[in-house]
């Protein structure tokens, strides 16, 4: 938790952590719908996975089939992820 001073009058108490969402079977794997990471700086795809696997080693088995999304769009392989981003792990979809 951090205080953010917007001007002299107003400050927010907000989470300045990166939120990573899990869906479908990944919720079963991680046991939760989301996790917060507090990266010191922006993360590459590889670094993000390293962070996630530290907490949820079982995700490794799904990694090959999971696409990353950043701010509601599929992320490019060279994307960087910051604490301002909403990140989601998208397992193979099955809508319709």
């Amino acid at each position: 938790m951090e205080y953010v001073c917007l001007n002299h009058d107003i400050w927010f108490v907000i989470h300045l952590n990166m939120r990573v969402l899990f869906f479908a079977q990944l919720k079963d794997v991680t046991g939760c719908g989301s996790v917060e990471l507090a990266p010191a700086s922006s993360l590459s795809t590889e670094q993000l996975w390293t962070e996630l696997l530290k907490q949820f080693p079982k995700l490794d088995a799904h990694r090959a089939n999971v696409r990353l999304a950043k701010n509601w769009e599929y992320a490019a392989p060279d994307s960087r992820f910051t604490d301002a981003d909403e990140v989601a792990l998208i397992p193979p979809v099955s809508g319709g």
Partner: protein
Amino acid sequence: MEIEFQLASEPIAERIPPPPSLGKQGAWLEFRGVVRGEENGQAISTLEYEAYPEMAEREIRRLLQEISTRHPCLAAKVIHRIGAIPVGETAIYVGVASPHRGEAIALLAEFMDRLKQDVPIWKRRGIVAAVCDHRGSGQTSKIGAHRAPLQLDEAISEIKSHCQPLPAVRVPLAEAFGRVLRETVCAPDDMPPFDRSTRDGYAILQGDASEIYQVVDTLHAADWKPRQLKTGEAVRVATGSALPCENLRVVMQENIERTGDQICVVKREAARNVSARGEDLRAGEPLLQAGAKLDAGALALLATAGNARPLVSPRLRICHFTTGDEIIPPDQKPKPGQIRDSNSFLIRGLLQRFPCELTQKHLPENFEAAKRDISAFRFPLSAFDLILVSGGASVGEKDFTRPLLEWLGFEIVFSQISVRPGRPLIFGMRPAREDARPTIAFGLPGNPLSHFVCFHLFVATALAKLIGAEPNQFRRGRLAAKLDDASNPRETLWPARWDPAGLHPLKWASSGDVTCLAQTNALIRVPANRGSIESGAEVDFLPT
């Protein structure tokens, strides 16, 4: 191109009107995907879908835009249902309008293929379960403007009568901790579901006194190999093994001698060493009653019973405004006249026992500036179930909680209570509107001790009602030391430390006293005009 997208948790209408034709439209093609009675080779009654709503909408719009560059499209309407969908009902509806039928057919075919590759919607699992929903009645009661300060019990009953349980939701078990169960859950099967060995050894028929037994099979813990044993037959079993038939006993492996495929029992014991089917619970017996708080043990029980998505109270959405120009963040050094904000952390901590999403914001102590800030707030206030305002509840010149709540559309139910500390407590209510659930609001007096008392007496009662739990009740306890107080015309809630020896009243000088809070785990109820109470006396208290 006109695109309409909707995620629906209710059934999709039987008839969907086509978009208005502007003269160019030659085809309006509709498609409905319905839930089959079979998923992955298993018969199901219901299929559950999940979506990542924000991204699903973006992807669907992106796909339609992209495909329409190849197959011209004038309008499209997509509705995907989420949640539990019974077999035979529509999971997805797509309607596309094009100048010609060929374009519409090609567009629809490609869209459905791409949707199944890219749009973040998932079939979660097939369900074969009955659904029982205890929704809140949502009735509203008449709001009266009380002028005289309310007594404690009157204030609590006002709050109870204005707060109704919020509609229940189904959530994955992993998100259910701390929520209130809103349906009675029964055992789906006998528990254990089969006669189970409690020892490593050999299963034989009850009453079979043979000299020698032929070992006819070996069972591991997860094996399921039913067979009817005959006299003189034995099956090797492990602890936890499902026994092959009923009416067996297990002879511990220490009590036999084995030669090849034959065993001989060297010591016969009375113990059967079998945990019988249904011994813990019979199918249909209630496991947990509606209203139960889901703690770790309750979650383990639901998991065992296969209830992966219990019907529970929703997470409460709470907004906490702090006011007061003298308030500074705790990492800053106060200048003369300033104090560090403790109420934000007090409230944040007190709310831990209620699953909720908390948004906190500081408001300037100028009514116009505060209104501007709230107008620019990124969440509409209708998005909250509860609004808490700290400070500004007495009637000093700068105090504006009451006008602020009125400006926000709240009706003030009461604004003063005859309780020490915490007299200037405001309770308001914004009735349900067509686009929003009802919201309740509390204006809490600014002092930390008043905050603490008002939270436990009033806010916690309201929250308990909203989630469908039983509010915390006063209990009887014995004073372990004298409570030294001058007689006061108001009822007093006295901070105390409660341990096996009894209640130890704590020292507090004023309602601003924060030092005693770190010790407090109970509030003693001192009746009006009572004064001191001797050690050993019985008193009412509220555990905190």
